[in-house]
């Protein structure tokens, strides 16, 4: 009996303290950690079309089309198929592909999740935070220094 009463007291305590743990999501944008891996952003200006990202991707999410002289023509990324492992960002030598913290994406059909390079370029930063800064300290372990300022816009 004591145990039951203790249990009831515990829940009552929670009911009366008025605290809630709910994230009121659309009204309050949640805090996202700087390392959070969201939708990709791509910069055609920086890309050297080395295809490393395409090769490392575990599930063929990235498709790169180049012409005969290895100039890039298309860069397609299926953000609905991606598993957000961040390997493409890790291997990219010039920070041309980057995972933003943006986790909000919707579409009516799966096809609409295939982003081409224009759409990838226009993916907004989440809360205008460039995650590269916060990730930078660790990047040295992976790819050596990036090449200065990055402009994705």
């Amino acid at each position, binding site marked *: 009996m004591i145990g*039951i009463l203790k*249990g*009831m007291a*515990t*829940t*009552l305590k*929670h*009911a009366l303290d008025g*605290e*809630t*743990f*709910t994230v*009121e999501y659309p009204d309050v944008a949640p805090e996202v950690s700087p390392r959070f891996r969201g939708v990709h952003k791509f910069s055609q200006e920086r890309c050297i079309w080395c295809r490393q990202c395409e090769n490392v991707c575990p599930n063929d999410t990235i498709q790169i089309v180049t012409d005969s002289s290895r100039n890039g023509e298309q860069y397609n990324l299926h953000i609905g198929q991606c598993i957000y492992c961040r390997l493409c960002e890790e291997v990219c030598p010039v920070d041309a592909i980057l995972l933003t913290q943006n986790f909000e994406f919707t579409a009516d059909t799966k096809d609409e999740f295939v982003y081409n390079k224009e759409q990838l370029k226009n993916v907004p930063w989440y809360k205008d935070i460039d995650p590269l800064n916060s990730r930078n300290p660790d990047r040295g372990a992976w790819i050596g220094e990036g090449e200065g300022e990055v402009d994705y816009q």
Partner: protein
Amino acid sequence: MSGVDLASVLLQQNGSGNATGNATNATAGNATNATAGNATNATAGNATNATAGNATNATAAGPTSETPLPDLISGLLGLDGFGIWGDAVAALLGAFLIANVMLTMTAVAGPWAKRKITAAFTDRIAVNRIGPFGLLIIVADAVRLLSKELIVPEGADRPAWDLAPIILPFSALLGFAVIPMGSGIQLADPETGLVFAFAAASIASLGLVMAGYASNNKYSMLGGLRSIAQNLAYEIPLVVTAASVVIFTGTLRMSEIVAVQSQPLIEAGALTIPSWFAFVNPFAFVLFLVANMAEIGRNPFDIPEAPTEIVAGYQTEYSSVYFVLFYLGEFIHIFLGGALMAVLFLGGAAPPVPALGFIPGFVWFVIKIWAFFLFTQWCRSAVPRVRIDQLIEIGWKGMLELAFANLVLTAIIVGVII
């Protein structure tokens, strides 16, 4: 005046038409209200008719302090002169009114209050996006549920399958016919009021078994069987415990049971504890509370539904309107359970201290019912469900013995002291 008369005549025709006709083919909203009116009307109307028409009937013998609601209504509308028809209309109106009050309370409790209460216990916010405090979720939910497809499982035993969801809410509504709700609101006050209420409430078991049996689903079947076993095991302690109250009062008439409780039990200066039976015999109160929880199938005794074990028990196959009816029925049953608690143990519609007497009795009554509802929801968030065999065991080996012990004890106390 003529307008009112016309309206009541129309209502009367409408009512009798529905009573004889097929009520189930009306649209959902209408069906709920109209049949609720009818069902209650059947009893209340009969009771009052009997009073008017047959002077030898015992009911006519003892007029209580408060006028029954139908008389009040007929007085208000000037229906006194219309004889038996006037009484019928008045009774119908009264029943309609009370049924609607109950249904409104259910509507608030089901989609909204339940969520809010559960959320409070679990540190969440719950519905808050539709309307102020999310209250419009009631409308949204009603539209959502009623607009769903009514799926009839293959092999369902048709008349039984259709009747079950109708029996459940209406048996509970029937019980309210004899409950004195304070401020003079009581449809009928027969001498056997208490027995009538229990009898009406336990018709629900029939509905559950019908639902379980007719659904052609094994989970439903298990749920139906469970509910029968559970009701058998807990009805007896429930009634026996209520009988201990009857020993005190010496009457089964609801209004008198309430009246007996209005005397002060202890007076210590400004503090007056009324002689509610919850204070006179707390043991019986606890027994009744537990048996009541089992009777209405709430945690920790919600095994006829037991979602994690047998999906949804007897209501597994029901959708759309029928589901709404089941849902309503469950909540009206909780309220009926709360009403019985209030009448038998909590002084009916009386305020806890006379100083608060300025608040109308009906408000107190509703507060008491809601307190019981709150308690069921609290248990739901904090008490584990018992197993079916344990439930039966507690019922037959524990509750029954305790209930009889309580009865004997009360009898001795009443016999020796009073």
